[in-house]
């Protein structure tokens, strides 16, 4: 009757429940592994403002039965590099990384890269091979595996090499079991769309058949790199408040408020403390637990905090968003909008949208939608995504658009925290603040499209109009002459001329 109690490590937890992290079957595993590593590489290059150069190679090692093979995946970037002492943990320990701060990054759950390596290990038992340099005089090379029960890296080999050419970047190479041929369409679509929203990146992919896919950068102009930011008062809960109090140097609440929170100046801090009934002079570290709870609740109901600014976000900008679509489709018309920063539960976010018409956009009887979140293309579960729901709710006839027109829409949401509905990061939840912004963005570009379509229509209409008077007036003259039993048909030239003058006004 006695029970056995035990603790498992987070690595063990994800090992046991790998399907919830996107590694549910051999096809999805290939897709997720490539995706997680590519996104880490993009983040690594952008964090130092360098246009990313990413090289991906997937090699088939051997068949392992039932349509599944062992592959070797190599992903190389020119990003910031990982300092030698952090390499083992960064690639051999779940929930270790540089992505837990409040800034925009792609891998918000902080376990993608290690999860891919972990999946490789449990399917092939082959160590991972990591090479990295931060651009200084040394290059470090590790062979690692993961002690899953302890969530610890096991270092099998460590080398240090001269870095004569000042190379900087990271190479990750490991083996995993998977099914590339079923994953292929999604993998290629993923890389293609990633290139669309990261037009400053070079992405090269050699697939197991030896085919080379190159997505060459269209520009070297980079968006400003995302910055880390202080927490916004609306997004703070009791736990976070305690952490902030613990780590502050401030001796009084006024200073604490101003130094700790995003966009809180002295006068706002004073007003708030008055509203909360807490003296500005109190030592934050001496607040009783119930006062901390009270403080947090008051923060959520205080109306005067400024909205977060977006310096911590890195949107694409209208030009980049357009450039990607133009490169892909050469449309007749394109319009884009970047909305002002907004906020949900204290997280700042920015919505960008573009609409394009004509060119190579397919006429598929419905609008073509591209979804992006923090520059990641979202490919699965389109119908559950908030953007799709919004597009469906819009009365497109109002914008002179019909389903058979070649129209494409791209929506990009960037935020310090994207409201994903699942760990698989495949679709965005229907948060009212976010969906309102998306709606406004799409409406805005739809109005631009409407103007374009109206202009085209108007020109055609004018041409048709001019001939109508010239056609009918002589007939009226002729029939009425006959009806009235007159001899001479009256002249209508003057009337026709008068119509033309009206047209030219």
């Amino acid at each position, binding site marked *: 009757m006695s029970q056995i109690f035990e603790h498992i490590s987070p690595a063990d937890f994800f090992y046991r429940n790998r399907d919830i992290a996107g590694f549910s079957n051999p096809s999805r595993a290939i897709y997720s592994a490539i995706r997680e590593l590519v996104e880490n590489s993009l983040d690594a290059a952008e964090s130092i403002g360098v246009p990313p150069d990413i090289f991906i190679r997937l090699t088939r090692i051997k068949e392992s039965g039932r349509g599944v093979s062992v592959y070797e995946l190599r992903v190389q970037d020119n990003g910031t590099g990982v300092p030698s002492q952090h390499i083992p943990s960064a690639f051999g320990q779940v929930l270790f990384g540089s992505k837990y701060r409040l800034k925009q990054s792609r891998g918000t759950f902080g376990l993608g890269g290690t999860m891919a390596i972990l999946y490789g290990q449990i399917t092939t038992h082959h160590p991972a091979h990591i090479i990295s340099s931060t651009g200084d005089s040394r290059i470090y090379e590790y062979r690692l595996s993961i002690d899953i029960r302890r969530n610890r890296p096991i270092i099998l080999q460590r080398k240090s090499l001269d870095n004569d050419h000042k190379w900087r970047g990271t190479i990750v190479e490991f083996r995993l079991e998977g099914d590339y041929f079923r994953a292929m369409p999604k993998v290629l679509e993923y890389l293609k769309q990633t290139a669309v929203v990261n037009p400053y990146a070079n992405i090269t992919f050699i697939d197991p058949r030896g085919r080379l896919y190159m997505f060459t950068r269209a520009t070297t102009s980079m968006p400003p790199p995302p910055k880390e930011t202080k927490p916004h008062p609306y997004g703070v809960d009791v736990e976070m408040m305690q952490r902030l109090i613990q780590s502050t140097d401030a001796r009084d609440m006024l200073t604490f408020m101003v130094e700790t929170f995003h966009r809180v100046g002295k006068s706002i801090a004073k007003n708030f403390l008055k509203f909360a009934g807490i003296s500005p002079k109190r030592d934050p570290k001496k607040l009783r637990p119930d006062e901390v709870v009270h403080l947090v609740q008051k923060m959520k109901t205080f109306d005067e905090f400024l909205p977060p600014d977006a310096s911590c976000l890195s949107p694409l900008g209208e030009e980049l968003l357009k450039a990607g679509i133009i490169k892909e489709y050469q449309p007749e018309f394109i319009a884009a909008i970047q909305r002002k920063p907004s906020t949900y539960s204290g997280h700042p976010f920015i919505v960008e949208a573009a609409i394009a018409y004509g060119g190579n956009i397919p006429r598929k009887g419905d609008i073509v939608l591209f979804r992006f979140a923090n520059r990641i293309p979202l490919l699965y579960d389109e119908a559950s995504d908030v953007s799709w729901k919004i597009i469906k709710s819009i009365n497109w006839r109002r914008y002179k658009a019909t389903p058979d027109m070649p129209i494409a829409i791209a929506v990009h949401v960037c935020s310090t925290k994207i409201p994903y509905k699942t760990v698989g990061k495949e679709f965005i939840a229907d948060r009212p603040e976010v969906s309102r912004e998306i709606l406004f963005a799409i409406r805005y570009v739809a109005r631009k499209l409407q103007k374009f379509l109206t202009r085209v229509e108007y020109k055609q209409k004018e041409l048709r109009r001019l001939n109508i008077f010239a056609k*009918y007036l002589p007939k009226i003259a002729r*029939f*009425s002459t006959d009806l009235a039993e007159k001899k001479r048909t009256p002249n209508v030239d003057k009337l026709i001329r008068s119509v033309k003058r009206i047209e030219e006004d």
Partner: protein
Amino acid sequence: MRKIKPSMKERRKRVLQALKGLGEKIYTQIEKGKFPWIEMPSRSTDNIYYDPELRQYILGDKKIRRSAGNIRHIASFTKLVWTAFFVRELTRERKTSTLRDLYYSAQAYEMSFKDQAESDNIITDLETVIGHAREDFNVFPEERSAVFGDLTIEYNVPGYEGKRLNLTSHPDGVMIGPALTSADFVRTSADKVIAIEKGGLFTRFIEEQVYRKFNAILVLTAGQAPRATRAFIHRLNTELELPVYIFTDGDPWGMHIAMVIISGSANAAHLRDLTTPDAVWSGVWATDIVNYKLPSDKLTDVDIKRLHELARDPRYKGELWQREIKTFMKIKKKAEQEAFSRYGLTYIVDEYLPAKLEGEA
């Protein structure tokens, strides 16, 4: 036997005069360097009123103006003038045209109608402008109904001028076409008119000699009565002073067939002489379905929706109408004229008709 004054030649002269007047008006406007325009009563629903004195729909005071200076009007304006031109030729030469013929004839003048609905509508415009029904200027639809009974007519169509025909001469019924509607009435021994919705019953009435037994002129409306037939019934009622009884199926649609003969339709609010306000709807009533235990079908949703519309219609104010509408709603059943056949083929003539004509209403 009675003799009646002929009237049809006079009418043709008036039509020709009206067409010429229209042409003169437009001609003068162009001569003065103006975009020609015409004005006519609006036929939009907010300008259609039920006139309880005339007991038909009429148009109100709202006018619409069609101007050749308006890009949205000029095409239909031109077609209207052409139509006037075309029907004047018809009338002068005493020929007829179907609505379909007219639709095609425009093409000779590089002026196609979009569809027949458009050309039909232009003809209605012309009716409104000159105040005559299209039958007066020899344009007819395809549908035909029939008549049977002791009435002698005298033709006015070319080649038959002065010829006479008695309308009992063909026991399948005599077709109501341009020749008949333009004929003058000469004499009749009948003392009533019975209008019948369906061909089967019309034939039965002829076979059972209803025209003789009841001294009646039988008119087959063949469903909703064509306008020429309504005009013909009107003339039977006014020129011959014969009371009119109408037999239809016992459902909202049959009831409305009777009503259109009696009080006309909103579509013809711009015209007179198409209605017969004193005509009587004699059956099949909802109460007949109950009293005669007729085989019946359930009213459909569409039927019931229609009944609700009729209940609000000003033409249906009368007591009889309201009672029958209520009964329909209560029993939720309908019956066809042929339903009487369940009591044998002659029952309707032997039992039902006499009771109805005696006016148990």
